[in-house]
C-alpha cells in the first residue's frame, strides 16, 4: 500500500504542486529533497513507499539517484517526473527499474492515475 511519499525536485513550485495533489488525496509527504544526493540520504532515513523523482538537478541527477536507491532497495518504487522525454532517457530509466515515467506538465489526474497503477 502506498501511503508515504518523498518528492525530489530542485523546483520549489513542483514541490508545492505535488504536495497539494498528494495531500488532497490523503498521501503523506514524508520527505522533500532538492537534489539526488539528498534524495538518496533521505530515502535511507525515511523509507518512503513511493518517490517522485525529477531528472535534471544539481549535485546528483535523478537517474543517478534512482540507480543508487534501487541498488540499496530493489523494491523501491519510483515515478520519474521530467520535462525531458528523449528515447535515450526513457531507455535508461527503464534499465534502472523506474516504475513509471511521467512527462511534465502534470495535473491531479495524471499523478493520481500513476500512483493507482502501482497499487
Amino acid at each position, binding site marked *: 500500500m502506498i501511503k508515504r511519499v518523498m518528492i525530489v525536485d530542485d*523546483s*520549489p*513550485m513542483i514541490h508545492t*504542486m505535488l504536495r497539494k495533489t498528494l495531500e488532497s488525496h490523503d498521501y503523506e509527504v514524508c520527505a522533500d529533497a532538492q537534489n539526488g544526493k539528498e534524495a538518496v540520504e533521505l530515502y535511507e532515513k525515511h523509507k518512503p513507499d513511493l518517490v517522485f523523482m525529477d531528472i*535534471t538537478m544539481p549535485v546528483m541527477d535523478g537517474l543517478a539517484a534512482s540507480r543508487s536507491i534501487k541498488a540499496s532497495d530493489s523494491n523501491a518504487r519510483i515515478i520519474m517526473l521530467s*520535462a*525531458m522525454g528523449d528515447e535515450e532517457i526513457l531507455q535508461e530509466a527503464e534499465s534502472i527499474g523506474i516504475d513509471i515515467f511521467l512527462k*511534465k*506538465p502534470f*495535473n491531479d489526474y495524471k499523478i493520481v492515475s500513476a500512483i493507482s497503477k502501482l497499487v
Partner: protein
Amino acid sequence: MVKLEIARPDFEGIIDRAMDDVVGTAAGFEVKRLNTATEINFGEVEITGAMLLPGLNNAMLTISLSHKAAEVLIAYMTGIFPDQLEEEDLYDGAAEIVNQVAGRIKSELAETDYHFVLTPPFTIIGRGHRVIHKSRIESICLDYFAGETLLKVELSFIK
C-alpha cells in the same frame, strides 16, 4: 546533382502546442495565440523565464510576462492565492514554465536539424527589461493570451 532542401519546421505550430500543453495542463487555462494585428496592453515585462538550448543550431527560449500575469499564472498552477505568493515563487515558476515548454519543443524537434539539449532554466527580472541578442539570429516571437495573462514567447536561433 539534386540539392535537397531541409524543410523548416513549423516553429509556430510547435510553440503553440507546447504552450497549450504546459500552460493549459498546469494552470487549466485555454491558451490562444494573438495575431500580430491585435492591439493589446501587454503591461510592463518584469519577469522572463529563460533557457539556453545548445544544439546544431544553438538557440534560446524566453517567456516574458508582467508581474501581475506571473502572479495569476503561478497562483493557478500552485493553488496558492496571489497575495500569498513570494517573489521567489514567481521567479521559480517562470523558470519551471520555460523548462516544461522547452521540453515539449525539444520532443517535436528531436528528429530535425534544430534538435537541442535542455539546460538549467533561469529567470531574468527587472521592470521593463528586454533581452537583446548581439549575434545574428532568427527569432520567432509569439504572443499568447491564457486566462487573464499575456505571455511573450521568443525562440531565437543563433546563425
